[in-house]
């Protein structure tokens, strides 16, 4: 028996967050301010996502937490433990089995369904921030749909690197209106932002919540002569041989050895279980 209120936050706080969530869903891509609370973890460790998850969870939910696609990193494990302890909800590593998924910097490879909620942890919600430091000005720019500046960032990319070098947190326009930072997901995941699931974004330190309702149009910004490309490392997964997934590069020794593996650990494990093998699979190594 724990002495925590369900999912740590008190009921009034969760109501406040739910009101912000409703507004965010009603105005897709718009950053709704909310009274972010101190959480028992440092800023940058997902305080925004945790508060949104806490406000969404019901006792019947099954929670999955991923960090860069993996279920077993410190961040993912500690947040999962946090809700096991404070909400007593079931947890899972299976994408398909989860009703709520909190994520840091990835969208699962498995297409999400209408009965799922994906909660993103967001460090800096304002896509215009690095070009325009004044909050008063960025809010006015959103209000008046003045988004020329966003293209200036992409222009600078091409001018400097010959192509759009922004590889993560790639800005998108939501439902033809608000330009939004999709959190630092790789741009490979951008096409997956058009989803059947409800997607919620929480920025704890910056005190903003925003959302993409199911089946909302999400367009990645680009130039006519430099169209958006969902890029990934040009390799197959060394464990499951998938060519269509986002890969992590892992350095394996100090002699230049490296391997590419799916960043989505659950997806990779699922493929291996159904008989897909990669270049460095244990089965092949022993064979």
């Amino acid at each position, binding site marked *: 028996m724990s002495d925590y209120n369900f999912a740590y936050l008190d009921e009034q706080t969760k109501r406040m967050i739910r009101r912000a969530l409703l507004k965010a869903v009603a105005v897709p891509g718009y950053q709704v301010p909310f009274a972010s609370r101190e959480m028992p973890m440092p800023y940058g460790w997902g305080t925004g996502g945790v508060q949104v998850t806490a406000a969404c969870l019901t006792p019947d939910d099954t929670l999955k937490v991923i960090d860069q696609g993996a279920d077993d990193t410190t961040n993912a494990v500690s947040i999962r433990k946090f809700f096991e302890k404070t909400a007593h909800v079931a947890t899972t590593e299976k994408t398909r089995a989860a009703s709520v998924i909190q994520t840091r910097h990835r969208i699962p490879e498995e297409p999400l369904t209408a009965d799922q909620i994906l909660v993103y942890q967001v460090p800096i919600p304002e896509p215009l921030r690095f070009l325009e430091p004044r909050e008063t000005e960025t809010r006015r720019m959103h209000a008046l749909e003045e988004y020329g500046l966003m*293209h*200036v960032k992409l*222009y600078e990319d091409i*001018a*400097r690197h010959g192509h759009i070098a922004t590889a993560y947190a790639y800005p998108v326009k939501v439902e033809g209106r608000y330009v939004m930072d999709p959190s630092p997901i790789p741009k490979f995941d951008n096409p997956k932002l058009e989803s059947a699931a409800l997607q919620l974004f929480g920025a704890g330190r910056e005190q903003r919540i925003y959302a993409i309702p199911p089946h909302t149009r999400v367009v990645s910004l680009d130039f006519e*002569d*430099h169209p958006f490309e969902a890029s990934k490392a040009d390799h197959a997964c060394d464990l499951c041989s998938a060519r269509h997934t986002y890969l992590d590069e892992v350095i394996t020794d100090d002699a230049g050895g490296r391997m590419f593996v799916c960043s989505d650990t659950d997806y990779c494990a699922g493929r291996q279980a159904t008989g897909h093998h990669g270049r460095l699979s244990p089965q092949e190594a022993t064979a």
Partner: protein
Amino acid sequence: MTPLLSVRDLSKTYGGRIGCADVSFDLYPGEVLGIVGESGSGKSTLLNCLAGHLAPDTGEILFDTRTDGPRDTRKMSEPERRMLSRTDWAFVHQNPRDGLRMGVSAGGNVGERLMAVGARHYGQIRAQATDWLGRVEITEDRLDDRPSAFSGGMQQRLQIARNLVTGPRLVFMDEPTGGLDVSVQARLLDLLRGLVREMGLSAIIVTHDLAVVRLLAHRLMVMKSGHVVEQGLTDQVLDDPQHAYTQLLVSSILQV
């Protein structure tokens, strides 16, 4: 001919203090109007009211819009006014740092106004930026450098290119040659004169440098304590000043 800008009884006070009072004038297409006066005479207040940076207390500012003819910019909605200031208007600040993005390359600075009005073709944006840098005498190899690596005169020329790339019809300039040394000033004046003539620009230039207005402005407005004390043809006002203050101003110039 319809004036491009028609100002009637414009007043702005700061609390009980007069910023500018009862200013009226017409500016026709292709005309350059100089506003001179000592510090605190209200010339910058007037310029900022005209450009929509300050809200005047009373008066009308009628701008001859491309689509709907003359409209009072004070009654426009904010999006309309901001659209105007991105397209048909330009504002050249005394300090180029106020008018440039110092963290963005020269090409990006010039391209921003194009992208703000919907340009989405990188190659074309870049070509236009290159063209404009050329017109303000910045070589193409500086296209990807940041303005922080430019000299003061180059920054000011870059600011002008950034402002003129969308083909504005009205340019507001606040001491455009203020912080520059004399030889750079001359070059900039020559450049501005050429652009004004080639593009048929109208401009309002605030300055306290009478030599600058003599070379650039067709007409002159002399301000003192928030009021316009004299206006007319530039050389007439400077050579045959009628008002006591203008006579004082003109006779105070040091002869080189």
